[in-house]
C-alpha cells in the first residue's frame, strides 16, 4: 500500500521546471527589481531574467491604463478650452473653479444628490487609481499572506496575536518575580470606541466582511482585557476613536439692566411656524404678561395661553 513516491516525483518536478522554458532576456533598467537592483550583473553570468506571466499581464495592463489616461487628459484639456471660449474667458487662465461654475451655469440641475449632477473634472479624479503590482517580476508576491486574499486584514490580526503573546510572556515573567500589575497603569478605554468597519476598511484598503470585523473586535477586546495590555497602548489606540463629546458648554445670556435697575433679557426672532416675535423677561417680575400691548386675553384659545405661560416659566 506504500505509494510510489518516485513515480510521483517526476511530474511534480516537471511542474517546477516549466519556468525554465520562459527565460526571457530583459535589460536590467526596465524593472525596479528589489532583489536584482542592488547587485550589478556579473560579467561572466549571462543576464537572464525570469518574467512571469503574471508580471507580463500586469505590465500590459499598466501600459494600457497609461495610454487611456493620456488620451483622457488630452480630451479634458481640449474640453476645458472649448468651455472657456463658450464662457468668453481666457482659456489659459481658466481654472477648475471656473469650470465648475461654468458647468453649473450651463447645465443647471435640480437633483438633490450632488454626485448625480453634471460635472467636469480632471481624469485622475474621475477614474479609479490603478492598483500597484503586488508581486515582483518572477510573479512572487511581496506579502506573506497574499494568498489569503486579504493580506492587510490578516496581517493586522497576526499583529494583534503578536501583542497578545508578548503580553502573556511578560505576565509570566512578572508572576515569576512575584510582581502584580500596577492598577494605576491599567488601560483606560472609556470615552473611546473601536473604529467602525468603514474606517477600518479605508485604513486597510481592503473590503472586510461583517464576520471579519466581529473577529477583529473580539481579538482586540481580548488583548485589552489582559493585565499588561497597557504595554501595547500605542497599537490599541491606533484603532480607538474618541467618542464625540456631548457636553457642550451652555453659555447663559447675560442680563441687562434698565434705568430702574431691573434685570431683563430680550431674545430676538423667536419663531413659531411663520410667526416671529421678540421676547423680553424681567426680574424681579410683576407677574404681568404683555403681548402686542394686550393682556394674555390676546390669545382667544386656552391652549396657546397655557403653552405660553408654561414656556415663560
Amino acid at each position, binding site marked *: *500500500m*506504500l*505509494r510510489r*513516491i518516485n513515480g*510521483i*516525483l517526476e*511530474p*511534480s*518536478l516537471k*511542474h*517546477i*521546471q516549466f*519556468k525554465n522554458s520562459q527565460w526571457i532576456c530583459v535589460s536590467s533598467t526596465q524593472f525596479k527589481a528589489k*532583489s536584482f537592483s542592488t*547587485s550589478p550583473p*556579473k560579467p561572466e*553570468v549571462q543576464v537572464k531574467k*525570469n518574467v*512571469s*506571466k*503574471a508580471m507580463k*499581464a*500586469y505590465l500590459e*495592463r499598466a501600459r494600457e491604463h497609461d495610454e487611456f489616461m493620456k488620451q483622457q487628459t488630452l480630451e479634458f484639456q481640449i474640453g476645458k478650452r472649448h468651455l472657456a471660449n463658450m464662457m468668453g474667458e481666457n482659456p489659459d487662465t481658466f481654472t477648475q473653479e471656473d469650470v465648475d461654475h461654468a458647468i453649473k451655469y450651463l447645465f443647471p440641475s435640480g437633483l438633490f444628490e450632488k454626485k448625480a449632477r453634471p460635472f467636469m473634472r480632471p481624469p485622475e479624479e474621475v477614474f479609479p487609481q490603478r*492598483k500597484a503590482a503586488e*508581486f515582483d517580476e*518572477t*510573479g*512572487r*508576491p511581496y506579502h*506573506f*499572506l*497574499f*494568498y*489569503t*486574499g486579504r493580506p492587510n486584514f*490578516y496581517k493586522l490580526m*497576526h499583529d494583534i*496575536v*503578536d501583542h497578545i*503573546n508578548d503580553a502573556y510572556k511578560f505576565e509570566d515573567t512578572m508572576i515569576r518575580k512575584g510582581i502584580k500589575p500596577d492598577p494605576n497603569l491599567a488601560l483606560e478605554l472609556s470615552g473611546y470606541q473601536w473604529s467602525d468597519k468603514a474606517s477600518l476598511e479605508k485604513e486597510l484598503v481592503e473590503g472586510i466582511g461583517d464576520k471579519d470585523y466581529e473577529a477583529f473586535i473580539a481579538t482586540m477586546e481580548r488583548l485589552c482585557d489582559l493585565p499588561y495590555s497597557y504595554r501595547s497602548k500605542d497599537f490599541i489606540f491606533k484603532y480607538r476613536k474618541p467618542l464625540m463629546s456631548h457636553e457642550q458648554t451652555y453659555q447663559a445670556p447675560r442680563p441687562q439692566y434698565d434705568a430702574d435697575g431691573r434685570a431683563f433679557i430680550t431674545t430676538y426672532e423667536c419663531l413659531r411656524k411663520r410667526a416671529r416675535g421678540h421676547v423680553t423677561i424681567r426680574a424681579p417680575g410683576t407677574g404681568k404678561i404683555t403681548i402686542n400691548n394686550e393682556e394674555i386675553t390676546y390669545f382667544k384659545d386656552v391652549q396657546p395661553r397655557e403653552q405660553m405661560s408654561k414656556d415663560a416659566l
Partner: protein
Amino acid sequence: MFSVVHLPKKLNKSTLLNTIRLSSTVLQTQDTVPTLPDAENLQKNTLNHPDYFSVHNLFTVKDLFDARVHYGHRDGSLDERMLPYIYGSRLGHIIFDLDKTAEYLRRALNFAAHVAYRDGIILFFLRGAQNSHLVEKTAQECGEFAHTKFWRGGIFTNASKQFGAVTRLPDLCIFLNTLNNVLLQHTAVRDSAKMGIATIGIVDSNCNPNLITYPVPGNDDSPASIELYCKLFKMAILRGKEKRKIDLQL
C-alpha cells in the same frame, strides 16, 4: 542494529543510504558528491544527488518522539489508508511507526529544499487557531507564504478572478494539517491536486493521504509537533535558498 562497514560491497550507494536512514536514530551524516561547474550539469547533479541539502541531519527519531509525533487519534477514527504507517495501538490510541515517519519526513524536507532552491513559491497551510500564528510566523521568517484562514473557494482554480489578474500560484503547498475540522478535508488539498501543485502533508491517523504528493504520517494536533515541523521545514527551505545563492552566485 548493524554497522555500515560490515555490509557487503555489492550493495550500491543509494541502498546503503536508505538503510542508514531507516534504521538509525543517530544524526545522519552525508558525504559530498563532487559538483560539476557547468550550469546545466549542476541542475542535473542537484537532482541526482540523494541529499543535496543534507536535510537528513536536521532531526533524529528521538526528536520526533520528544515532540510527540508518534501519537495518533483514537483507533476508532483510523482511516484505513493510514494502516501502512502505524506501529500499533496503545490504550486505545494509534501509535505511528516513527522510523517510517522519519523516512517520509526526510523525503518531504528534501523536496521542499529543492523547490526553495529553484525559487519556487511555498505556501503553508494549517487550520485551527491554536497553532496558526506559529505557522504564519514561520512562513514569514523563511520568506514564504501562509494561509491559515478560512479558504475561499477558487483561490487556485479561479485565481485570475479571485485576485483580479493573472497570478502565479504556489509551486508547493505544505499542509501542517490536512483537515478543516475532524471530518472534512481541506479544500486546498483537492484544489492543489487539480492544478498540479505538489503537496506535502502531515497526515494524522484520521486523514486521507491519497491526494498528497508527499504524505508524512504523524501527529498534527500537538503544539510541540507543529513547532518541530515548522522548525524543520524552515531550516530545509533556508538551506535550499542558501545553496541557491551560492550556486547561482547571486
